[in-house]
């Protein structure tokens, strides 16, 4: 078990990240100066009510969106100054995403959805290996419409880890799932974090899940409200909601 590696340089670092949507009367300030650092191999849960800015923060970390002000660093690279092409290759090589609504390509089977990524990644694992790690070894040739929600989410996780990303960004990965299925998905994420050392950020508004992380960051009203280190982590099977 590799566990949490505490090297000197954080994998993500943000300085005063602010995000404003719209203007005038429609102006919404989603983030109001977020400073944080995520370490290599760390599993972090980002907790907050809806509207607290957690999805916005994750989109910015994953280079799906750009901040209005402030700076974001991936290791020593400043993402906020990178070109669109550089951000695309950043996503391609370093980040895996898992969404609440799986975002699978309906016309591709489970194996093919994973292959979609392995075909363009620099040093990917085999799609089969990724699916096994995600806990879905035996339904590889099914199309998304033939899979349950939990299974679809595990395909999404397999697709996210298949490229051996440095970070895994998961936005409410259990949000659309029942508790039992959700636990299976969380187990997959924890195992991968432990075995591959992939820094994992997990967004949720589900308080129960915070216990599985190394660290919990509470977001409220676009700011970091609190940071709590879990002295003792629970296994996903010990969590329920």
């Amino acid at each position, binding site marked *: 078990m590799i566990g949490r590696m505490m090297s000197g340089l954080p994998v993500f670092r943000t300085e005063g990240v602010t995000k404003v949507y719209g203007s005038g009367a429609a102006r919404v300030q989603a983030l109001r100066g977020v400073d944080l650092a995520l370490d290599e191999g760390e599993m972090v849960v980002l907790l907050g009510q809806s509207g607290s800015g957690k999805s916005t923060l994750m*989109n910015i970390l994953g280079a799906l969106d750009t901040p209005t002000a402030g700076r974001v660093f991936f290791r020593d690279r400043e993402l906020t100054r990178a070109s669109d092409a550089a951000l*695309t290759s950043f996503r391609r090589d370093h980040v895996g995403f898992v969404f609440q609504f799986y*975002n699978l390509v309906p*016309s*591709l089977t489970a194996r093919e*959805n994973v292959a*979609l990524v392995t075909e363009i990644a620099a040093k990917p694992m085999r799609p089969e290996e990724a699916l096994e790690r995600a806990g879905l070894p035996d339904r590889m040739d099914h*199309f998304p419409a*033939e899979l349950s929600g939990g299974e679809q989410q595990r395909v999404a996780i397999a697709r996210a880890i298949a490229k051996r990303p440095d970070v895994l960004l998961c936005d409410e990965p259990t949000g659309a799932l029942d508790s039992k299925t959700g636990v299976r998905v969380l187990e997959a994420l924890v195992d991968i974090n432990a075995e591959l050392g992939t820094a994992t950020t997990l967004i949720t508004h589900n308080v129960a899940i915070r216990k599985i992380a190394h660290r919990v960051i509470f977001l409220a009203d676009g700011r970091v409200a609190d940071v709590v280190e879990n002295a003792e982590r629970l296994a996903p099977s010990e969590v329920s909601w």
Partner: protein
Amino acid sequence: MSAITRKLLRDLRRIWAQSLAIALVLACGVTVLIVSHGSISTLTGTRDAYYERQRFADVFASATRAPERLGEQIGALDGVSQVETRIARHVVLDMEDMAEPGMALVKSLPDSGEPALNIPLLRSGALPDPLEPDEVAVSEPFAEAHGLIPGDRFRAILGGQARDLRVSGTMLSPEHIYSIGPGAIMPDDRRFGVIWMGRPAAAAAFDLDGAFNDVAVALTPGARAEPVIAALDELLARYGGTGAHGREGQVSHAMLQHELDQFAALAVIMPPVFFLVSAFLVNMVLSRLIAQERQQIGLLKAVGYSTGRVAAHYLMMSAGIGVAGVAIGWGAGVLLTGGITAMLAEFFRFPFLVRQISPAAFALSGALAVATVLLGALRAVWGSVRLRPAVAMSPPAPAKFSRGAVDRLGAALRLRQTTMMILRSITRWPGRAAVTLFGVSASVAVLVASFFFFDAIEVMLDEMFNQSNRQHMTLRLSEPRGDAATLAAAALPGVLRAEGAFSMPVRLSVGPREELMRMEARGDDAELLRVLDADGRSVDIPTGGIAIPERMAAELGLSVGARVTVEFLAPPRETHALPVTTLTRQSLGEEIYIDAGTLFGLMRQAPQVNRINLMVDDAALGDFYRAVTDTPAISGVMLVTETRDQFNAQIEENLFTMVFFYATLGILITVGVTYNAARIQLSERAHELASLRVLGFTRGEVAYVLVGELALLSLLAVPVGWWLGYGFAALTAQGLSTEFAEIPLVVSRATYGWATLIVLAAAAGSVLAVRRRLDRIDIVTALKQKE
């Protein structure tokens, strides 16, 4: 304004680009219908008004020399209301601004001035003074071509004498709406004109004192032409009558009718094809557009709108698109009709235009267009409004895919997953793919069938000028002469080869059917004028029989070996039953051929000629033309080479307009199909495509998925379009072939190539426009939409 109406307007504004693309395709169908009907009714209306005002005659006949008193007998015939006897002769002109000799038809005017029938319309100056033998009026187009104004003079050879004629005025005539010289295949205002002169002057010039050689007859209302024609024929037979005929045998009328028939054929073939294509497209595009509105339909029903109200809302949205299409189509139709009829009025020399497009054409095209969109919408609306609100509001179940041939193909070729996405999308929605494919192939087909005209014309010209009429020019003799005339022509300066021929009018009868035609006798040694058999090979006509055009044989139910009755409408007026020995190919015109030996044997005469085909050395043309002008026996010169060049020039001139018009239609259909297909794909798959961007695919790689499918379908559509286009061309060739012009069904590689190039370029353009939208797509927003 109610909220739902506001929604309607905003929706239309939101999808304006797609709506416009549909409306434009629809407008094509409407435009073609309006243009063809508008052109026909404008030309017909103009012609009828012109005929009525200028009292265009009903029956026409020519003779060699008939005594003037015969006019009264003709006037006394049953069914005849008015008679106009006159002198009409072809003459050679010696124009100062032309090296080559020109030709004119001299027509006499009665002493009273205006004739009772076929009244020429004075355009400038005055009628010629009947007492002034050198004063003439000339046809306006001819005057314009030579810059002649009243008071100017020009030289003509009248009855073997060169005369200086003074222009008193310019005129247009209902007999020369289509002003074409004898033996010519198209109007040439420089080389052919009409000259009107006083009857005494004409009689003196052509030695026809107290006689006439041409007569026009008006019928009493309700009288049938046939008995009058027969009676007139009988009266004129002993005076060298060449066969009376109704309006259908009058060259200008027949050519105009030919043009109208072609328009009518186009009106029958083109609009249904366009409507079919646009109906199909509009139908499918609208149903997909409305299918996307499914959740809103559910919502409207959830908040209490009735099914009928919701359905009406979407039908009105579609009707809006239909109305826009109709408005554009009507506008373009009226504009184009104006342009086309103005062009035709120039070509056909009408003094005025009675512009009319029947209200029925507007009503029909409008109703068809709106019905087309409503039908398309109805299908989709019906599918959506029947759903319970909760079902409609929740996103449709993810599409089911299954494994099949595509997977084996993918595995065998080790295709990338993005390629598999393209292939699966096509096999998952074959109907949708078929519509795109059909639409693109329809564009290719429209272009192939349009550009095919140029191929057909090229073949016709090749056949006309390179295969059969290989002479540089043809001399017409004022009366038949012995073989010596050919030798004399061969002795003219610069003549390289001279071949005599003899042409005369005949009446062909098969059972109850009669046809007035020209029969040409040619010697076995004729190399300039060749007769082509049905396969296009040059053949000699066997002695003892005649060769008739293949098309005419088919129409009359004749085959080789059948006997037909041929009445010679020249002295001696005899009737013979002759076997058909050869079927000939003649794309332009219809003529019967007979072996010279056979003909003169039947006529019991020494061989004669009244046409001489020549090859002339270009370097000696000046001397040659001077000699021709000085030879009284020559009544006209047909410049075959010049005609061909002129024809080519005319085609080149029309080429740009035609290509522009049809290319526009083809591009509109292509853009209508591909732009809509791409836009709908984009909105249906925004989520999926955004996911690819999240996974690290570049814009180009994501665009490949979207563009690839349309590119693949467009490529597959090309051969289908070729095939459809060939069929469409066959239909057009058949519909447009008349006795004047048999349109050969030939489609060149260049035609296929250009059609393909234009369509693929239009498809690429519209898909790339959508790709720009794809590039601008906001990943985060796209991902927030539920699947």
